[in-house]
């Protein structure tokens, strides 16, 4: 419970409307732990003051963006304050001619895309993480969220040009520091953005980001090919990867996943596995690639091919991006895995995962970035099924992780019930660099107030 003195200190910074406590904080629980207060700063100055206050009072901070990926990470050691960045939502510099955009951390990606669509001939931020409309830019940075388009456009580590961060300094004050800038080429000083991206807010609270934007492609289409076997889509994906075609995305998914999809590609009885290739660019090149991929799919014995364009095409990818959410809302106790291995081994580990799901009689929904070697598995669970299968699932994660690590990759449990997170290390081992990671955490957050315990190795 928030005492009166502390409450006043908070409202002195953010006003009455910037604070929710008591029952009103219930919607901001992290792994079941409800914060004493949820604070909504509206400026970077206020963020600094809140951090300073937390340092003074010895309180922990859980930064919060759009709340779409709060399941990521181990359960926090202690939750005092949730600091929601959602009201820092201004665009600070929109420079389409120079293909850069600077915005505050709380702006939603959907808002950015909407604004950019109407600039000049149309621009976009080439980032398509799950829940692309609601995710905040700062949240995406903290989680290093990405989507299928990463094949062509890269991830935030390739898109971010500069950041501004509030660091809980050893001086006892929340202090803003900038790194990077506006230009695509920049080697002035250390590449600090790389540290902050994917650090889950454990080194500082990002308040502003500058990133690359691109002109919207002239044309766009997606080829969806359904097969009666599991291997053919992967063979197609490999052939496309090894060709000189320039797809934006190559996704492979199974029947369980497809059942959530658009009418246009509702699976026929014989289709069990799909590859979807997204093509963007000048219209002649898109047309040529559609033809090439169709031919490829036919040579692999395709059962059904669909070509999506326009709003159907956009809708299809949006639905794909909501897969984790769809699973979560359908059966609240769900588990999501992200398995990343060298490209050529993804089909093998995907198969292993599928077989385990079948053996456990659980609906494993697999969706893979076949051009990147990343296999996502979503497992919807009701309460009694969870209780029944908890041990087996924990065992599965451990063995899949062993297999992935033998292949030179990794496994992350992206979301799971708090009880499951106690049974399984969600991140896996940090490896030989752990001492350096710990050293960085000590330097940037000496009091350990930011997201304590949520990151790799319990950082």
């Amino acid at each position, binding site marked *: 419970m928030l005492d009166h003195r502390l409450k006043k200190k908070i409202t002195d910074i953010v006003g009455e409307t910037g604070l929710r406590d008591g029952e009103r904080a219930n919607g901001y629980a992290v792994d079941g732990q409800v914060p004493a207060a949820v604070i909504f700063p509206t400026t970077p100055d206020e963020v600094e003051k809140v951090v300073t206050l937390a340092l003074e009072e010895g309180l922990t901070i859980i930064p919060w963006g759009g709340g779409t990926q709060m399941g990521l990470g181990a359960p926090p050691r202690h939750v005092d304050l949730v600091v929601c960045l959602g009201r820092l939502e201004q665009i600070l510099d929109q420079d389409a*001619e*120079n*293909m850069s955009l600077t915005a505050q951390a709380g702006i939603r990606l959907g808002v950015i895309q909407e604004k950019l669509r109407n600039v*000049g*001939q149309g621009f976009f931020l080439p980032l398509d993480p799950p829940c692309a409309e609601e995710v905040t830019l700062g949240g995406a940075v903290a989680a290093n969220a990405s989507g299928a388009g990463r094949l062509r456009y*890269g*991830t935030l*580590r*390739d898109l971010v040009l500069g950041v501004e*961060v509030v660091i809980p300094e*050893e*001086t006892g004050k929340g202090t803003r*520091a*900038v*790194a990077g*800038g*506006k*230009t*695509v*080429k*920049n*080697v*002035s*000083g*250390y*590449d*600090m953005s*790389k*540290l902050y991206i*994917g*650090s889950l807010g454990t*080194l500082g609270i990002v308040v502003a980001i500058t990133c690359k934007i*691109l002109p919207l492609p*002239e044309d766009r289409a997606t080829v969806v090919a359904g097969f009666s076997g599991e291997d053919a889509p992967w063979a197609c994906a*490999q052939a496309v990867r090894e060709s*000189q*075609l320039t797809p934006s995305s190559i996704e492979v998914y199974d029947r369980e996943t497809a059942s959530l999809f658009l009418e246009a590609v509702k699976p026929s009885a014989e289709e069990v596995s799909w590859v979807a290739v997204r093509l963007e*660019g*000048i219209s002649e*090149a898109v047309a040529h690639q559609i033809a090439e991929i169709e031919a490829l799919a036919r040579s692999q014995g395709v059962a059904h091919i669909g070509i999506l364009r326009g709003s159907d095409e956009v809708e299809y990818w949006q639905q794909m991006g909501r897969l984790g959410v769809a699973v979560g809302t359908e059966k609240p106790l769900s588990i999501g895995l992200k398995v*990343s291995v*060298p490209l*050529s081994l993804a089909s093998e580990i995907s198969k292993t995962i599928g077989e385990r799901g079948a053996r456990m009689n659980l609906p494993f929904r697999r969706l893979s970035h076949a051009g*990147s*070697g990343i296999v996502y598995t979503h497992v919807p669970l009701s309460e009694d099924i969870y209780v029944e299968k908890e041990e087996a699932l924990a065992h599965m994660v451990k063995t899949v992780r062993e297999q992935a690590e033998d292949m*030179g*990759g*990794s496994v992350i449990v992206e979301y799971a019930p708090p009880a499951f997170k106690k049974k399984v290390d969600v*991140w*896996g081992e*940090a*490896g030989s*660099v752990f001492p*350096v*990671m710990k050293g*960085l955490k*000590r*330097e*940037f957050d000496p009091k350990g107030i930011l997201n304590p315990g949520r990151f790799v*190795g319990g950082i």
Partner: protein
Amino acid sequence: MKKGVLIQKMESIVGRGNVVSSRTGLLVYEYDGSLQRGLPEAVAFATAAEQVSDLARLARAERIPFLARGSGTNLSGGTVPVRGGIVIELSRMNRILEIDLKNQRAVVEPGVFNLTLQEVLAPLGYYYAPDPASQKVATMGGNIGENSGGPLCLKYGVTTNHVLGLEVVLPNGAIVQMGGKALDYPGYDLKGVIVGSEGTIGIVTKITVRIMRLPAAVKTLLAIYDSVEDAGQTVSDIIAEGIIPATLEMMDKLVMQAVEQAVHAGYPLDAEAVLIIELDGLPEGMDRIAQRVLEICKKNGVRKVEMAATGAERDKLWMGRRGAFGAIGRLAPSYMVNDGTVPRTELPRVLKRVAEIGEKYGVAIGNVFHAGDGNLHPLILFDERDRNQREVVEKASYEILQACLDVGGTISGEHGIGKEKLRAMRLLFGNKDLHAMWKVKRVFDPENLCNPGKVLPEMEEEETGTAHA
């Protein structure tokens, strides 16, 4: 430790023939591609990570600085031992360890020349995107240290976007692995911080990079202009139309004249500027885009546009551009090259400022640069043996950097801060920003022995609460 004992210990690590300690031998390592100078105590050629580790431990035990060096083509003094100590030479650690086509990765040792990797990949139908102009001689380890760019970086990114794994010897001698062949390993992106850290937080001993399929088609154009501003405006206009060429490079008259003397690439001697524009991708539709580019050039008063009809013609065009810095040697004994980077639309304005600054100080300045990403390289010609000239050139340089910052740019696009731009770091960053970077340095290298005196300017005690030397 007496020098003799130090050399002996180094020899026991890398072998007797692999340590340089004579005065004449050491002079070769006193300089790099910049104007900085610093004599090392000794140089050791290492060929294995364990040797690098032992050398670092030795230096640390003796409390002497150490730094890594590849080909020494560094343009900001990053490979000059400005505080003495040991140079760990990696140019003999130059094996390509693995070409893994099915995973689209290559694993190389730091001493491999960038071009060597390209030449091995090309017949297989692949390439490694970061292609700095110095690729014939610059090493992959050096590329990592500087986060090198290259003409292709407008479309494909710089070194850090293609490095997926590193083996690093930390300043305390520990050999650690960062990243690997897969993507998104859990933890902080430490390899992302190592890239571009100019050898100040560790020494890279193995590199895993992404390799890509060569594009199906390439179209190279040479656009000849009678004014530098028109060329600059063309660059802006091309991007504004949503066309992202693979490459957009510019050279001015001074540079072209030097290049023609050196390599006879076929550049016009009387034009004020040329643009090399390269489109890549699928051939379908490429002609239409090339036509649009042509129209934009014409709109901006281009004199003539030539298109390379064969691979040989294309190579010839590029030979000139890549040989530009080297060719400058025909015009003056020394040059000071700037590396300011500005938002592309500011190019015409900044180029004008550069010309004004040249006139103000009475120095000749040639321009060759990556117009597509706004990374300028004004080359100020002079003779460094004349102390007065050196001072003038440094003043002119500083003003050019300031001009870049005035338009929202940065002080280094790809050559690094090194020692040369230390002072200029304070034009760009405040104490709090530098303080955050010093945190990183402190974690990796608490004793400040790993390439000290580079990248981060020293901070006063009262600025930070603790002294950083």
